[in-house]
């Protein structure tokens, strides 16, 4: 059968036909995709739905409240050297997270080159960016809590602001924290040469997928929660 040919490396049917043949061969749908990678993608898909539920409920409460919504541009402004700069903290956090994604992408590349030292170093750098991000988030939370923001109340307007803020950024921050632990673990294993035996560095790419996803979620939080 022609179906079977899709399973043989080297033969590739172009376009939509690959989709149909892959899904109809009754063995594995994701041909030549590491099982760990496929599972990570499916996990990330489920995570997409979780974050989407948060953002959708945020949309719902924000558009149904009759009270004015606090202006994030002002709420997250900082006074730096006497200058009042709107939303600056969040902007810096965004750049830090993007940079961490950059170093992670490089780590994946060096992993496939089997350059263990560089891979581990880049992953540690990524984790360090992650720690910086979470620390800044802790600072942001402390500042807002001291200003009187609670999940049920805040000084500037619609009380739903607090619950959305703590829920969405808290859940994202938790993802970053878990990512830091995850990346550190994998980086140590890379350094020890655990993957050298198998000669397979796809673990690094799989960890990278998780990390890029955390960055991806931030793109949406930044747009919808902080800029809107």
């Amino acid at each position, binding site marked *: 059968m022609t179906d079977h040919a899709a399973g043989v490396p080297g033969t590739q049917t172009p376009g939509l036909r690959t989709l149909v043949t892959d899904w109809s061969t009754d063995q594995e749908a994701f041909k030549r995709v590491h099982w760990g990678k496929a599972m990570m993608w499916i996990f990330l898909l489920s995570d997409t739905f979780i974050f989407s539920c948060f953002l959708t409920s945020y949309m719902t409460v924000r558009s149904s409240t009759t009270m004015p919504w606090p202006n994030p541009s002002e709420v997250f402004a900082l006074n730096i050297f006497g200058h009042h700069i709107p939303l600056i903290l969040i902007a810096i956090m965004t750049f830090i997270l993007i940079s961490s994604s950059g170093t992670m992408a490089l780590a994946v*590349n060096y992993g496939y080159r089997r350059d263990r030292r560089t891979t581990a170093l880049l992953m540690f750098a990524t984790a360090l960016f992650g720690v910086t991000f979470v620390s800044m988030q802790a600072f942001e939370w402390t500042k807002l809590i001291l200003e009187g923001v609670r999940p049920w109340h805040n000084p500037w307007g619609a009380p739903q602001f607090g619950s959305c803020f703590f829920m969405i950024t808290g859940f994202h921050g938790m993802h970053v924290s878990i990512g830091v632990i995850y990346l550190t673990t994998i980086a140590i294993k890379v350094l020890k040469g655990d993957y050298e035996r198998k000669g397979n560095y796809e673990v690094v790419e799989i960890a990278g997928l998780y990390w890029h996803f955390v960055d991806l979620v931030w793109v949406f939080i930044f747009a919808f929660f902080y800029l809107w």
Partner: protein
Amino acid sequence: MEHEGVVEDTGHAVAQPAPAPANLQHGQQHPLGIYFAIWGLLFVLSTFSYLVDYFHFEGFQRWALIVIFMWLKAGLIVAIFMHMRWERLALKYAILIPPLLLGVLVALMSIESNYTFWTRVIFFGLFGTHAH
């Protein structure tokens, strides 16, 4: 069975480092330049979205710009950093199609919130915090 996992599953201790298995040629190897380029682009796009706020764009312009920059950034991250661009169609469709359903949720909830809003306005009055 040409399953990549096989290499990992057996996990036999080999005396010397194994030569790169054949499957590695399918691994995601791309020139470093592309990552730096995307990294730079993401910085530029983030700066643009920050400037939308900084220069106080309002109304349609504001949300159009925010959404455009957001999707460009998201697309670059998924396509290049997460290598989706180079994955097989079966995986692409399995991951990228389901989230489209979220549009239904967003549409339903926006109708619902509109209803809640007007219920509040009619029964509690606009800006009514004291619903006695």
